Structures are given as C-alpha cells and as structure tokens.
C-alpha cells in the first residue's frame, strides 16, 4: 500500500497515525507541508529514520524546494518528482491519503 501524508507533523497528528498503521514494506509519500518531517533537525527526524527500516519513505521534490528544504533532506529518504509520484500510485494496488 502507498500512504500519502500532506500535513506538517508539528501541526497535525496525521504522520504519526500513518506510521502507526503502515505495515512492513509499505511506501509512505510525504507531500506539501508534510515534507518538513524528513529534513535535518526536524522533531520527526528520529521517527522517520526508525520507520525507514521497515518502510520506504518518499518525499516530493518540488514541495521540498518550495519550502527551502531541498538541501536538508534526511539520508534514506527518496526524493521524487511529479512523474515519480504518478509511478508510485501506479505501482501500488491501493493508496491511503491521511488528510
């Protein structure tokens, strides 16, 4: 399954809910304000790095750039563009958006 989160982890609990529910081998794509979670020094950084052991973590590049965070992405996080976003949706049987 592909999980998509679009809210900042320091504003809402949706990333936490997602990580609690995502099963091993699932993909988690962070977009919009959710991308702050995968940047160096963020409060969620440790949680993301721990989760990356069991999950594939992706973040949308244009959203990182628009937030001045293109150069601060945590190791182990895969940055994708809009084409990569489409590929992820196509590759997975189902998709859950944590609105």
């Amino acid at each position, binding site marked *: 399954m592909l999980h998509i989160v679009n809210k900042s982890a320091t504003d809402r609990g949706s990333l936490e809910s997602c990580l609690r529910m995502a099963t091993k081998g699932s993909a988690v794509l962070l977009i919009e304000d959710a991308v702050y979670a995968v940047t160096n020094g*963020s409060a969620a950084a440790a949680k993301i790095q721990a989760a990356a052991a069991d999950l594939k973590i992706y973040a949308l590049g244009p959203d990182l750039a628009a937030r001045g965070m293109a150069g601060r992405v945590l190791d182990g996080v895969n940055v994708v563009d809009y084409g990569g976003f489409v590929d992820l949706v196509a590759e997975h049987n189902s998709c859950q958006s944590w609105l």
Partner: protein
Amino acid sequence: MSDMDDMDEGSGIVKKFMFLNRKAPHGTVYALEGLEVVLITAAFDQDVSMVFTDDGVYQLLKGIDTKGIEVKDFSKTYRALDGYDIEKLYVDQASMDARGLTEDDLIVDVTTLSVAEMANLMAEQDVVISF
C-alpha cells in the same frame, strides 16, 4: 491610497498590534494572507510586531524555490517589510530548536525570544491577530 494617509494623520491613536504567524507557507493560505494584512495595516502607522512561532518560522526560510509547485514565492516579500516601516520581527527559540533552524537559515533579520519573553510580548499588546 492618499485617503489612507489622510486617515492615519487624522486619528493619531497608536495601538500595539501583534500578527501571530503559526502556519507553514504554501500548504495553507494563512501565511500569504497574514502577510498581505500586515502590508495593508502598515498604512495606518500603528505599532506592529510580527511574530513567527510553531510552523510559522518556516515562512522565513532562505532558499525557497516555488517554480516546481507554480505558486508565488512570497518569501522575498518579507524583505520589503523594512520599507513599510515594519521592523519588529520575532521568532521563538523553542520553535526554531524543534525544527533544527538557526537565525542564519532565515531570509530577514529577526529577534529571537524565549518562551517567557514571547508570552510577555503577547500580554502587552492591544490587539493580537492570528494566522
């Protein structure tokens, strides 16, 4: 425009206004709307403070490039505030620390306050407007 100049010359009452910014840019419209309200308020010659706390500190980051998401890069507009005589910009240390940010990461000069200093600043305002 000239009407507004006449108006603020007429009243002469100066109140302390705080604009409290708590949202990241782009994901919601709060940051941009808050900034526009501040620019308009500047015409009334009030005592304006702009405070960035929680995810609001993300509004001031350097190196923002919005071409990929096709929205306006209003981070540059914070640098125009000085020309509008809005010089009191504050961030809170705890919000910066929680996001791994320092003043060097920001596009404008700010004053960093402790939680206690921020609380006092808020308490002494006549009006607090939150975005």
